[in-house]
């Protein structure tokens, strides 16, 4: 048997999945509390012991891990114009699996430096200027960042003409300083792949150690990537296929968590009807968005506030009833619904989280009245024709009525300008394997793909 050990060091749980590479099957899964304060290996061992060991003992051919422990990968991005290189930098950081704490634009100020100090990011992504475009801001910001009290890993992804010079300036204070390709080499052209790889590289050479995850590294081959990056990678593989093994085609993955709701879409998102004009930044084929105010537990209060009337209408409850349930969520973040009422509340909250997160992920269409009649302008991705929506995350997996929650991802005729999928089939990541399959892709993409096709089931 060729067993592969796949580990997801989460912020609360360390999840372990053992896969038989030959039979392409899951041998066992288990989880235990993440023990980052003591020794990360303790939690891992505790999880491993839950899976019955074969008589000949484990003989793992590969040991791979991803991690969102110790706050995950926290980043700050900085660009020139907020809507252009600022946004491109934000997208690059999100695509690398980071939680983006803040995005700065134009020249950094001393107040911005204070914000960076208090936010304590793991990596700073510095962009600005197209290649051959504005040079001043990248150099000035590099100079400004030397005023930070301590060293911070920096990835430079700005105007290529001055990148090396900016790196020289930054190296006086910071380490490592890595130069990648510009996130916006030309106006309106998004190029995030090189920055993503640079971020990933810094993550496993520097951040792992800073977060105390290096103790596991002697046992593992190396900790590969932040968990959200693994999920995005798995999503991409599942959609596009590998070699002769076909993928499922364009799809969306909605991950409803306790603190955030992540949406991944692997789709071009071109206009589905003729004579629609595309405006704004081009969208990455593999796109990830994270909504920090939409979560089931830690950010439940914000979710109720954002959903507002929609939640009350859906539940048909009074304000007191909602407040009471909200109190329970806050008291015990690990609560699993005990009563029918609690279950109903969870469904409603999940549905709202999915609905709002997908609203923000997909594109919109706008009617512009010109002297020649109405013209349609599209911003972002048109996902109305998207055939597949996959649900993952604790709330969806443990809920008997997952499709009711996922229905939040579907197009709402009352909001026709929001380009959500009109008639998608729902799937669920039943065994919670997407992140680990993103890891397995690194060593055996075809097996990872076939296993996802097997274990991600239609509702």
């Amino acid at each position, binding site marked *: 048997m060729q067993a592969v050990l796949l580990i997801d060091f989460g912020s609360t749980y360390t999840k372990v999945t053992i896969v038989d590479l030959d039979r392409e099957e899951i041998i066992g899964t288990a989880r235990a509390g993440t023990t980052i304060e003591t020794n990360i290996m303790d939690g891992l061992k505790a999880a491993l012991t839950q899976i019955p060991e074969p008589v000949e003992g484990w003989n793992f051919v590969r040991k791979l891990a991803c991690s969102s422990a110790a706050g995950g990968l926290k980043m700050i991005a900085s660009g*020139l*114009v907020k*809507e*252009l*290189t600022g946004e491109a930098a934000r997208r690059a950081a999100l695509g690398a699996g980071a939680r983006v704490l803040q995005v700065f634009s134009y020249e950094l100020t001393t107040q911005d430096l204070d914000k960076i100090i208090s936010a304590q990011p793991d990596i700073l992504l510095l962009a600005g*200027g*197209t290649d*051959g*475009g*504005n*040079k001043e801001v990248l150099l000035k910001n590099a100079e400004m960042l030397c005023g930070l009290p301590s060293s911070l890993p920096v990835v430079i992804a700005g105007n290529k003409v001055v990148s090396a010079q900016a790196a020289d300036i930054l190296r006086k204070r910071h380490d490592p300083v890595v130069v990648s390709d510009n996130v*916006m080499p*030309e*106006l*309106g052209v998004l190029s995030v792949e090189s920055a993503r790889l640079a971020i990933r590289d810094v993550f496993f050479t520097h951040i792992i150690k800073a977060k105390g995850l290096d103790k596991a590294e002697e046992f593992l081959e190396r900790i590969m990537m932040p968990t959200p990056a693994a999920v995005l990678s798995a999503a991409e593989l599942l959609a596009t296929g590998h070699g002769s093994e076909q993928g499922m085609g364009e799809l969306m993955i909605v991950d409803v968590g306790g603190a955030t709701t992540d949406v991944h879409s692997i789709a071009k998102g071109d206009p589905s009807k003729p004579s629609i*004009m595309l*405006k704004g930044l081009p969208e990455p084929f593999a796109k990830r968005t994270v909504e920090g105010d939409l979560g089931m537990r830690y950010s439940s209060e914000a979710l109720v506030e954002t959903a507002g009337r929609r939640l009350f209408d859906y539940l048909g409850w009074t304000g007191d009833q909602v407040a009471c349930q909200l109190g329970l969520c806050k008291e015990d973040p690990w609560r699993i619904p005990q009563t029918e009422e609690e279950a109903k509340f969870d469904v409603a909250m999940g549905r709202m989280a999915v609905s709002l997160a997908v609203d923000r992920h997909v594109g919109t269409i706008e009617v*512009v*009245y*010109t*002297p*020649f009649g109405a*013209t349609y*302008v599209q911003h972002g991705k048109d996902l109305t024709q998207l055939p597949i929506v996959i649900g993952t995350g604790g709330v969806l997996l443990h809920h008997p009525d997952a499709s009711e929650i996922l229905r939040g991802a579907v197009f709402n005729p009352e909001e026709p300008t929001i380009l959500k999928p009109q008639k998608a089939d729902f799937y669920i990541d039943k065994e919670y394997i997407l992140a680990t399959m993103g890891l397995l892709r690194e060593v055996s993409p075809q097996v990872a793909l076939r296993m996802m096709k097997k274990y991600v089931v239609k509702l």
Partner: protein
Amino acid sequence: MEQNTLVLGVIGSDVHAVGNRILDYAFTQAGFKVINIGVLATQEEFIHAAIETNADVILVSSLYGHGEMDCRGLREKCQETGIGNIRMYAGGNLVCGKQDFESVKERFLAMGFDRVYPPGTMPETAIADMRKDLGMTED
């Protein structure tokens, strides 16, 4: 020698794409780096593009007759965003109806434009002006 950069677009609710392509082609052929933001472009899009690309010129075209309305305030916004000295050109059917071009030109110059062109101007005229304005000619 570094290429001179210009931001080209059709402003406001105007969707005339053909003239825009012709201008893009003509200016590119003439050796300029053209940042074409296309049709239905807002003032902000012109400015953002100019900042990010460190452009030398903003070239606004408008064919549907509402150019005067769409262009008003562009110079002030450029000043606000720190590119107040950028050169601004406008051309096309800039106003409604048949108006005396000299008075139209006056209005646009007062709005802060450096060059204004009447309908039917050939790209070569603007190219020659731009070369002169940017000090690209020998004389």
